[in-house]
């Protein structure tokens, strides 16, 4: 879940990004999305290893995975904020919706979770919904 609120705070596209593939804003959006998915995988691994209390995961802090997740989350946020300086908001938000696909794929490939037909259909519906509200949500959020 890339940080949606900060988006509207950014100034409109001004100037050019530095040269090089790494500084390409679209590379940074991609990086932000991948790191976002990685965050969830790391947190899941950490939570799985460590949380003993019932509902609040403070115990997760004893797991290195959770700290890795926090680092990935913060790095993802910086990539996201950087790319928003150069990439039109609606393109950025549409790309950000890809996290909803990437996380289940990573859950399956890396964590070995099984995704049945029902769950896959549910994920598809959520994705469709996220895309449907992406544009109006951007406008509404600027005012919140």
């Amino acid at each position, binding site marked *: 879940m890339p940080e949606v609120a900060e988006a509207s705070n950014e100034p409109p596209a001004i100037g050019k990004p530095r040269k090089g593939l790494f500084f390409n804003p679209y590379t940074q959006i991609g990086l932000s999305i991948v790191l976002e998915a990685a965050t969830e995988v790391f947190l899941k691994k950490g939570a799985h290893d460590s949380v003993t209390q019932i509902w609040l995961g403070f115990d997760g802090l004893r797991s290195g995975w959770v700290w890795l997740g926090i680092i990935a989350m913060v790095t993802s946020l910086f990539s996201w904020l950087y790319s928003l300086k150069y990439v039109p908001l609606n393109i950025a938000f549409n790309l950000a919706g890809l996290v909803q696909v990437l996380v289940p794929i990573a859950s399956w490939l890396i964590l070995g979770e099984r995704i049945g037909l*029902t769950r896959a259909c549910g994920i598809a519906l959520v994705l469709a*919904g996220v895309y449907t509200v992406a544009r109006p949500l951007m406008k509404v959020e600027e005012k*919140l």
Partner: protein
Amino acid sequence: MTPLAFILVLVSESCSAAGQIFFKHAMSGREGNTGLKLTAGVVVKALGFFLWVGLLSKFDLSYLYPFDGLNRVVLMFAASIFLKEKMTLNLWVGVGLICAGVLLVSRS
């Protein structure tokens, strides 16, 4: 998913959304105490985060993550309540799709 777990998911998503809005207001330099807004943002964000980690220890990631879509639903309703924003047809369709998807996932 039990009703309690579902409520905790909603609380976690609401905290996360509220945290973003606090951060945004703190950074925009509008009237009010910036330090207080930042602190409030950090506190609710952290609460949302730890609830999420707690939930992750109970459920599959591919099961729990789609519920993150509810973040948008929370923001929509916050906008319609606090800003009296009109809910357009598009928004209702999107909210409906997200809720239907989450319902399906919850039964998987």
